[in-house]
């Protein structure tokens, strides 16, 4: 009898040990690289420590390609559990891939979702179901190089407030120092940059359903003409985000308008090189500021079972206020959980780090991104990219190019209206 009992207890112990070591591996596709990439990995490692039965494998894809790459992975039946999806593509993704509704009662209680700021959470809400949680949302900022300002004879503490002031400063920089004056990010095939430009000028980028482009109004054309003039006059070198970012970080460009997500990276590069300044997005002719958030939400694709449960654990972990604020502090993305200042660590951070204050102050003026619909999205976005290329080649004015582009975009999107 004793022998049998010892055998049984031995078996039980082995079983327990085996299941304790039985880990679930989940795969997380994202586009974070450099310092934010390391921060993300650190957060995932923390999560793994708290949940030793889950292993998170993260796969990096470039932000311009992550949409296509995730689709390719799903098509090739490679494991995809949790993915970053650029905010504007959430509806497209929910339609083209087997995304899982996060507020489905089968997935446990949903209080963790209520912690998010509602206007950002709504971007992921489709017909009452929530498919995405906000994660890496940024708001566009004006970064400037105070040393270049001084060299050009500008007052380094009087930061340009409106677009007219930005153009004037950039022109002076080019004339006095020969360096590039300013650039505005285009991001995501020119889609994000265009959206922010026209929205801030008072035009509507896409209608609410995302099925029609509406920015061929006088304000839309005017602001895009300004963008063309920036290239024509030479104050903006015609390049891409990567080259502009590199030039600004190397102290070779006066101003660069890009997401608050670049903040920590710029601070690190500017150290010992130049005096960095950060300001809010420039106003268009004294109109109130209206900008859209950039960046990605997170969606769930794991099949039902242990991988889905492990993935939900990860999502809940990321939605904790302390984790979310830590992510925000380390990167420059907006803090997306309600009441960020209630977190003492966050309040202390804002008090001690003046450069982050413009983005925090701008959160109130940041609208959710426009979302593209389920079909025709990829073709339409190619038209936007071509529009920017043509604008900067400056062979035709914006008044000719923009309405033509809007027409082509609407043609591509019209397939959604036939439903």
């Amino acid at each position: 009898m004793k022998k049998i009992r010892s055998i049984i207890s031995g078996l039980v112990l082995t079983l327990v040990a085996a299941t304790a070591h039985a880990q679930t591996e989940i795969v997380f596709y994202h586009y974070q690289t450099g310092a934010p990439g390391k921060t993300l990995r650190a957060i995932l490692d923390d999560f793994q420590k708290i949940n030793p039965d889950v292993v998170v494998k993260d796969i990096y894809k470039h932000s311009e390609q992550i949409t296509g790459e995730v689709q390719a992975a799903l098509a090739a039946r490679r494991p995809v559990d949790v993915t970053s999806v650029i905010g504007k593509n959430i509806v497209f993704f929910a339609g083209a891939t087997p995304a899982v509704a996060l507020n489905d009662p089968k997935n446990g209680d949903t209080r963790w979702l209520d912690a998010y700021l509602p206007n950002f959470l709504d971007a992921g809400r489709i017909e009452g179901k929530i498919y995405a949680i906000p994660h890496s949302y940024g708001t566009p900022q004006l970064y400037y190089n105070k040393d270049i300002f001084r060299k050009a004879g500008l007052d380094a503490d009087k930061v340009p407030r409106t677009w007219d002031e930005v153009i004037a400063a950039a022109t002076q920089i080019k004339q006095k120092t020969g360096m590039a004056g300013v650039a505005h990010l285009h991001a995501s095939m020119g889609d994000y940059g265009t959206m922010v430009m026209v929205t801030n000028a008072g035009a509507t980028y896409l209608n609410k359903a995302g099925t029609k482009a509406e920015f061929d109004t006088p304000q839309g054309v005017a602001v895009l003409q300004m963008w063309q003039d920036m290239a024509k006059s030479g104050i903006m070198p015609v390049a891409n985000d990567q080259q502009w970012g590199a030039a600004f970080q190397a102290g070779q460009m006066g101003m660069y308008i890009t997401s608050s997500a670049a903040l920590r990276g710029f601070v690190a590069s500017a150290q010992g090189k130049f005096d960095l300044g950060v300001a809010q997005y420039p106003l268009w002719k004294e109109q109130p500021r209206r900008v859209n958030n950039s960046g990605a939400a997170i969606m769930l694709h794991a099949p039902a079972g242990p991988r889905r449960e492990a993935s939900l654990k990860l999502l809940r972990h990321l939605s904790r206020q302390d984790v979310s604020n830590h992510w925000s502090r380390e990167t420059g993305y907006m803090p997306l959980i309600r009441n960020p200042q209630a977190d003492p660590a966050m309040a202390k951070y804002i008090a001690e780090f003046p450069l982050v204050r413009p983005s925090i102050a701008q959160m109130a003026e940041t609208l959710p991104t426009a979302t593209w619909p389920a079909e025709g999205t990829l073709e339409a976005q190619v038209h936007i990219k071509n529009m920017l290329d043509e604008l900067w080649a400056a062979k035709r004015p914006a008044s000719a190019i923009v309405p033509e582009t809007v027409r082509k975009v609407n043609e591509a999107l019209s397939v959604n209206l036939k439903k």
Partner: protein
Amino acid sequence: MTLGTPWRAVGHLVLVLLCLSMVVPLLVALGMAFKPPNEVYSLVPWPQAPTLDNFRRLFEQVPFHLYLWNSVATTALRVGGQIVIAVLCAYAFARWEFPGREWLFGAVLGAMMVPHTLTMIPIYMMIAELQWFDTWRALVIPNLAMPFAVFLLRQHFRSFPRELFDAAEMDGAGHWRALWLVVLPNLKPVLSALAIILFIDCWNEYFWPLLVTDAPESRTVQIGIREFLEADHNDFGGLMAGVTLASLPALAVFFVFQRKVMDTFVASGIK
């Protein structure tokens, strides 16, 4: 053969300019690999304060050592496999007459005319079905058949002294042993040249690894460069460090076997 003097001067001038244009960009890249960040935008090609820091950052940002290993392993497997299969094939065509020989030979050479463009979609679908993504199998196996190698080898088989074969047969050696004892030792120069060409071809490949590898751990060094290009917005020094490392093996292999390659070029002549 001599040329008139004015033509000679023009010729030399053109060639010097041409060769300079080949060398200068490469030297600039090499110089940048050792330049500290503050010298990156300087026009002077060589660093005033050389540093190895770019290499360190390269390995920190991306798993470059993995990329290098993947390239080495898949290239070795693939080139080895290509040579073995091509030698067996060329031997069969050269040694025997059998029904359908000319027709099969035409089929093998005909495959040389089918560029990868035409077959990539179904092969990609096969890889998906077999779940070969991110494995060496996807990089090696679809490319193991190299009709070009068969073509080159057959040219050389044609110039074989028949006495060698007769001698082997009289000793009672079967076809397999004849291959090892008689044929292969005489193929060494061609095989070396072939190995170099195939090595460089595989090492420098971009499109196919781009399609079938995904996870960082399985990428090869050329795709790794692209990953680094897109990953960091600031580190051109690191980028050039990666470029330098990625180019070293081909350069090394070439310098070691330079004679053999040039000789083969001259010998076979493209007729």
